[in-house]
């Protein structure tokens, strides 16, 4: 990379700082609002200095919820965590296996299966949501973790990504394992998975956030407050009808909702970047 000097450097930095400020400001406002009392939030204009009710608001959110929607956020966080983890891990496991089958095995209608998987890429969740709902409800999976996660696990995108990656692995490597005496599953475990680990990490980050941010599907299939995910929880807190929305608690919940995805991104950042840019693994 060519290092810029003088005006160019300052200009670059200015643009970057402005960009970051634009993105960070709403989050800062959320944080400030989560540390004030309701009346302070409703003052116009709202102060931009953090207040003194931080711990109070967060503990209210975590352990009791708002008065209108008395579900503790701690439980919602747990539900969201389960959903995001199961979806991410499930999607990765299924995609790895199906990509492995499509790339390395010769079986009848192999390409038909591949194209069937591929075609589902063109059908987003919203399009197939009614039949999926019907199936899930007939199977009695409403208001359960299985219902929240299983229908979202099949993933054409991840299968396709892994397929493309597997195709770049030289045939000689497969042949070397054959001669070394490894069977297909051994090859999968000892060679393919270790080689895919940066891809797996990158996908995990993306899919965790995908699972965490799910809105429409959990909204449809959960009616029991105990099964609410945090995204749904925030939505319910806002539906306060004629009552005053408890903004500080809602804002505290929003902040809490952001923590796990941020944590995952930060923790896996090194792998994530490697998975996206590295050609040599």
């Amino acid at each position, binding site marked *: 990379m060519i290092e810029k000097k003088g005006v160019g450097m300052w200009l670059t930095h200015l643009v970057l700082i402005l960009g970051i400020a634009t993105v960070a400001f709403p989050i800062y406002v959320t944080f400030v609002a989560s540390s004030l009392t309701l009346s302070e939030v409703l003052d116009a204009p709202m102060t931009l200095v953090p207040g003194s009710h931080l711990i109070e608001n967060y503990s209210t959110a975590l352990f009791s919820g708002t008065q209108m929607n008395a579900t503790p956020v701690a439980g919602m966080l747990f539900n969201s965590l389960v959903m995001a983890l199961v979806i991410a891990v499930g999607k990765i496991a299924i995609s790895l296996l199906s990509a492995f089958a499509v790339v390395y095995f010769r079986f009848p209608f192999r390409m038909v299966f591949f194209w069937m998987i591929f075609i589902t890429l063109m059908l987003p969740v919203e399009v197939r949501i009614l039949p999926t709902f019907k199936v899930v409800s007939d199977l009695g999976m409403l208001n359960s973790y299985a219902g929240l996660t299983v229908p979202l696990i099949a993933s054409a995108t991840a299968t396709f990504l892994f397929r493309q990656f597997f195709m770049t692995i*030289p045939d*000689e*490597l497969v*042949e*070397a394992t*054959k*001669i*070394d*005496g*490894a069977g297909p599953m*051994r090859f999968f475990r*000892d*060679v393919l998975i*270790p*080689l895919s680990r940066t891809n797996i990490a990158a996908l995990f980050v993306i899919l965790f956030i995908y699972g965490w941010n799910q809105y429409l599907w959990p909204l449809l299939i959960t009616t029991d407050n105990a099964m609410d995910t945090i995204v749904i929880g925030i939505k319910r807190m806002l539906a306060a009808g004629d009552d005053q929305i408890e903004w500080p608690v809602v804002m505290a919940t929003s902040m809490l909702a952001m923590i796990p995805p941020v944590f995952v991104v930060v923790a896996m950042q090194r792998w994530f970047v490697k998975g996206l840019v590295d050609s*040599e*693994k």
Partner: protein
Amino acid sequence: MAEVSLRGVKKRFGTTQVIHGVDCQISDGEFIVIVGPSGCGKSTLLRMIAGLEEVTEGDIAIAGKVVNQVEPKDRDIAMVFQNYALYPHMSVYENMAYGLKIRGVPKAEIRQRVDRAADILQIGALLERRPRQLSGGQRQRVAMGRAIVRDPAVFLFDEPLSNLDAKLRVQMRVEIRKLHQTLRTTSIYVTHDQVEAMTLADRLIVMNAGRVEQIGTPITLYEDPATLFVAGFLGSPAMNFLSGAVAADGQSVALPGGVQAPLATAHAAAAGRPVTVGIRPEHLDLAEGAPPTATMKVDLVELLGADTIVHGRIGDGGILLARIDGAVPIRTGDDLPLVLAPERVHLFDRETGARI
């Protein structure tokens, strides 16, 4: 250690026949090189021996046992690939140990065998490194180490030196030969490089378009090529081919430019027939006062120091290359008198390419 026999081995991909029947008996401890131009089926043949390709017809036997239906891992072979095929995520040690680990060899013995192989190949200091931290030559050694630790009956090499630079190739060639002298394991080595083939082989199999042209020791193939193809493939610079006709008495052959080259043995049966005459550049010598067999018009001179390559013509279509020992002061445009030993003249049938 084991002998390998190929009996009428054929291979078809769909309707395309790529190997038209190979018969060969490889003895225990022999170093066999399969050589030929790209696409001649040499790699396919090796892969069939390895068990990576199915045999369409015929039998392959290792140590007296037909292995057509045996999995590669149960054939007691080890293979070195052209691009090394090292496991990129494993250290050198793990790469070499992997095959043994799968076979359930005890840890202590794995350690011992890997250390011994690393010793032979002088890669002891690299055991903890990853393949990507190694140079091409080192990777090649690791790939050979992976084969050695297995202590197999047969080593298979698939163009193992093609990815190395010229200097390293010469060095590794010598090392492979030395390694074979130490281990005496039956080895089958595929290459398209005729120098590699000539220097490494106990016996050569020359293949062309899916057929075996000739099997024999390098020197036999060099001195007594059975076909025009073998004659042209082995030797550098390549053999000169001229069109000629055997004289009526069968004692000499007429070359372009009115040259009559005497033959060592009478070819009465071929008398009057048009033939292809093969003469190796190194078998053409300066006349130096002796009565010349032919006079060549010099077109171009390449001075290599150790020898001089002279490009020239005799008559109209008779383009010739002569390799003269030492740096000889020859200039473009000279008329160069040359002598040719009669026993060095090879005659080939115009149609079939077979030696007469």
